C-alpha cells in the first residue's frame, strides 16, 4: 500500500498498513520488523512515513472518560481533535492548543508537540497532557511528569519513536460557546506586525498573522485575534477528509494569481474589522478545500521556522528577502509570535521568538531557496519544525535539536520513521 504525507513530499513510500482497533493489544507482538504509529497523515513531511509498517491508529478513537466539572478528557490516541471538540464544546470546554486542521489525532499532536494560535498563553499541546499510557515493545508504561518522567518528556515531541500512545489525558479550558469574536487588523510592515501583535496578545486568546509576500519588498497582512464569545454551543459535522480527492495535474499557483487572491483577501478582511465566527471557521479554515491537491502532482513544501526572540525582526526580514529573491509563488504565509513558555518535550519545536510558515509548490528553485533559508535558520540558532520538514540535512537537524541523541537512546528500537532515518544517518562528529 502506498503511504504518503500530506504534501506528497518526500515521495510516497510503499509499505504495509496495519490498523490498530483495540488498545488492549500490543501491536508489536503481531508485526515483524519496525513500525510507526500513524494517525491522519497530516504531517507535511516524512515524520509520518514508516520504514517498514505503518500502524494506523485512527480506529482507536474512543473517549474513555470526560469530566464535565473539571474539564479533563481521557481519549484513545486515534481520536481527532475535531472529534474531541464536538464532545467538549457543548459542555463548555475546549482544547487550549489547536492546529490549523481538525483532522489531527491526539497521538500525532503529542508526537509533534503541536502549537497553535494560543501559544502566547497556552504553550504547546504537551503542556496540557496530564498523563498517557505508552505501549513499547517490552511492555506498557504509564507516563506522567513524575512517573516515567523521562519517557514522558521524550514522547512529547518524540515523533512517535518512543512507542505507541494508547490513551492520553488532556486538560481543557473553558469555552463560553461555539462562537468566537474576531478582530481583523491590517499591518503593512514587520514593525507594525510586532507592535500590534504584542498588543493583541494581551487581550485575545488566539492570535495569528496572515501575511502577503507577493509584492517583493512589501510585507503586509492581517492580524486575526479571536476569543470565545457568547452564543450557542452547537457544533458542526466533521469537514470531509478529501483523502481520495484527485490531485490537479499541475500546481494552480502562479505569482499573478496569488497577487490577485491575496489582494482580494486583504481587502475583504480589512473591510470587516470585527466578525463573529464559528470556532471551526477560526481554527480550521483550510479544511473546507482539498488544499494539498491544489499544488499538483509534484506536491509542495511547507517551511516553518522559528527565529529566536533576540533577532526576530532581522531574522524574519532576512527570510522574506530570500523568498522574494527566489521569485517563487507563495500562496500561503503565516506569521506567529511564540511566547516564552517552555515546551515540555525534548524535541519540541517552539522557542521564544517568531515563526514563519510558507507553503511553496515543489520546483527546483523552491528547493534551492528553502535550502538556503534552512541553513540560515540553523546558523542563527533558530529551528525548523520536523513535522513540516522534508529538506533538512542531518547536520542542520542535529544542530537545531541538540537533545536528539537523548531521544535516540530512549526510543523504542522497533519504531522507525523515514524522517529519523534521514536526519540521523550520518553524524558529523
Amino acid at each position: 500500500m502506498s503511504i504518503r504525507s500530506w504534501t506528497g513530499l518526500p515521495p510516497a513510500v510503499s509499505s504495509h498498513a496495519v490498523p490498530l482497533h483495540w488498545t488492549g493489544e500490543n501491536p508489536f507482538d503481531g508485526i515483524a520488523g519496525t513500525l510507526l504509529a500513524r494517525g491522519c497523515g497530516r504531517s507535511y513531511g516524512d515524520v509520518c512515513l514508516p520504514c517498514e509498517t505503518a500502524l494506523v491508529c485512527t480506529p482507536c478513537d474512543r473517549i474513555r472518560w470526560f469530566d464535565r466539572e473539571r474539564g479533563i478528557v481521557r481519549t484513545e490516541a486515534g481520536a481527532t481533535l475535531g472529534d474531541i471538540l464536538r464532545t467538549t464544546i457543548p459542555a463548555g470546554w475546549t482544547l487550549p492548543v489547536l492546529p490549523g486542521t481538525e483532522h489531527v489525532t491526539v497521538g500525532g499532536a503529542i508526537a509533534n508537540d503541536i502549537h497553535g494560535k494560543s501559544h502566547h498563553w497556552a504553550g504547546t499541546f504537551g503542556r496540557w497532557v496530564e498523563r498517557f499510557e505508552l505501549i513499547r515493545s517490552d511492555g506498557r508504561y504509564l507516563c506522567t511528569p513524575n512517573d516515567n518522567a523521562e519517557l514522558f518528556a521524550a514522547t512529547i515531541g518524540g515523533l512517535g519513536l518512543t512507542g505507541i500512545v494508547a490513551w492520553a489525558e488532556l486538560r481543557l479550558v473553558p469555552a463560553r460557546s461555539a462562537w468566537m469574536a474576531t478582530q481583523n487588523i491590517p499591518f503593512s510592515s514587520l514593525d507594525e506586525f510586532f507592535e500590534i501583535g504584542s498588543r493583541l496578545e494581551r487581550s485575545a486568546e488566539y492570535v495569528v498573522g496572515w501575511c502577503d509576500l507577493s509584492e517583493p519588498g512589501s510585507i503586509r497582512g492581517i492580524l486575526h485575534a479571536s476569543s470565545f464569545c457568547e452564543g450557542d454551543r452547537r457544533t458542526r459535522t466533521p469537514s470531509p477528509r478529501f483523502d481520495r480527492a484527485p490531485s490537479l495535474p499541475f500546481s494552480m499557483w502562479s505569482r499573478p494569481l496569488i497577487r490577485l487572491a491575496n489582494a482580494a483577501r486583504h481587502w475583504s478582511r480589512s473591510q470587516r474589522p470585527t466578525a463573529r465566527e464559528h470556532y471551526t471557521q477560526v481554527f480550521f479554515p483550510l479544511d473546507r478545500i482539498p488544499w494539498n491537491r491544489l499544488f499538483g502532482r509534484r506536491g509542495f513544501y511547507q517551511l516553518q521556522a522559528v527565529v529566536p526572540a533576540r533577532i526576530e525582526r532581522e531574522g524574519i526580514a532576512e527570510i522574506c528577502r530570500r523568498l522574494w529573491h527566489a521569485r517563487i509563488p507563495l500562496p500561503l504565509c503565516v506569521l506567529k509570535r511564540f511566547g516564552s513558555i517552555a515546551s515540555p518535550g525534548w524535541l519540541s519545536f517552539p522557542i521564544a521568538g517568531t515563526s514563519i510558515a510558507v507553503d511553496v509548490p515543489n520546483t527546483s528553485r523552491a528547493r534551492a531557496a528553502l535550502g538556503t533559508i534552512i541553513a540560515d535558520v540553523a546558523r542563527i540558532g533558530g529551528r525548523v519544525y520536523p513535522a513540516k520538514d522534508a529538506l533538512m540535512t542531518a547536520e542542520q537537524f542535529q544542530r537545531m535539536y541538540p537533545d536528539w541523541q537523548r531521544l535516540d537512546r530512549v526510543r523504542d528500537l522497533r519504531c522507525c520513521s523515514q524522517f529519523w532515518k534521514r536526519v540521523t544517518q550520518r553524524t558529523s562528529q
Partner: protein
Amino acid sequence: MKLDSILIVGATSAIAEATARELIGTCRAFVLAARNRERLDAVASDLRSRGADAVFTLDYDAQRDVERDVVADAERLLGTVPDAVLIAHAVLPRHEDVVCDAKYARSVLDINTVSVLVLCTHVCRHFEWRGSGMLAVISSVAADRGRRRNFLYAASKAALDVYLDGLRLRWMATSPALRVLTIKPGYVRTPMTAHLENMPLAAQPQRVGRTIARLLRRGDCGRRYIPWWWRLVMGVVRRLPDRVLVSVQQ
C-alpha cells in the same frame, strides 16, 4: 417511530459502535451486549463520555448463550422492552480454513446464523406482545450469491435474509408499528475484514454507521444495501451465469 432505547447485540463490532455513536442524540438508553468485557466497557464509556444518558452492558457469548433471552435481560435493565434491537455480531472465517473443517464450520454457523435466528424469535415474542418495535439485523451483500471464496459465510447470512423477509411480511400484515430492517453492507474496513487482502469499493464503518442510524431513526423497513449502489452491483452479480463468474471470480 419511537426510538428511546436500543439493544445492540455485538456492540463491540466496528459497525455497531459507529451506529451507536450516531444514535446518541436520538436514543436515551443503550443496552450493549458483547462477549469481550474489556472492549464492551471501552465502547460503553465512549458512549457515556460523548453524552449518552444511560448505557448498560450485558455479557453475551453467541456460542455459549444461544438460547438466552437477551431481550428480557435488557428489559430488566431498562424497565421496558427496548424500542429497537440491532443484531450486529458475526464472524468472517478464512474460507480455506473452514471449507473442510466441520467443527469450525459449525461454530461459524452457530454464531452467524443459529444465535441470530434464535435471538430473533425472542425479539419477535417481546415485540409482538407489546405491539411495536424495530428489529434491525446486519446481514451482508455476500448473502445474495455464493461465491468461490466465501460461500459458507454467504450461506450463514443468506439464512438471515430469508428469515427476515418472512418476518417482515408477517409483521406488515399485523401492525405498522412492527418493523424489520435487513442491513446489507458491502465491504467495510473493520477488524472482521482485516485479513482480506482485496476489498474492492470498501467503505469506512463510520459511513455505514451513519446510514444505519438514519434508517433506524426513519423506522425504515426492508432490505437496505449500504452504500446503496451495492444493490446494483449485486443485481448484476446475481444474474451472471456460473461460467462467467468462475472466470472473474475473486
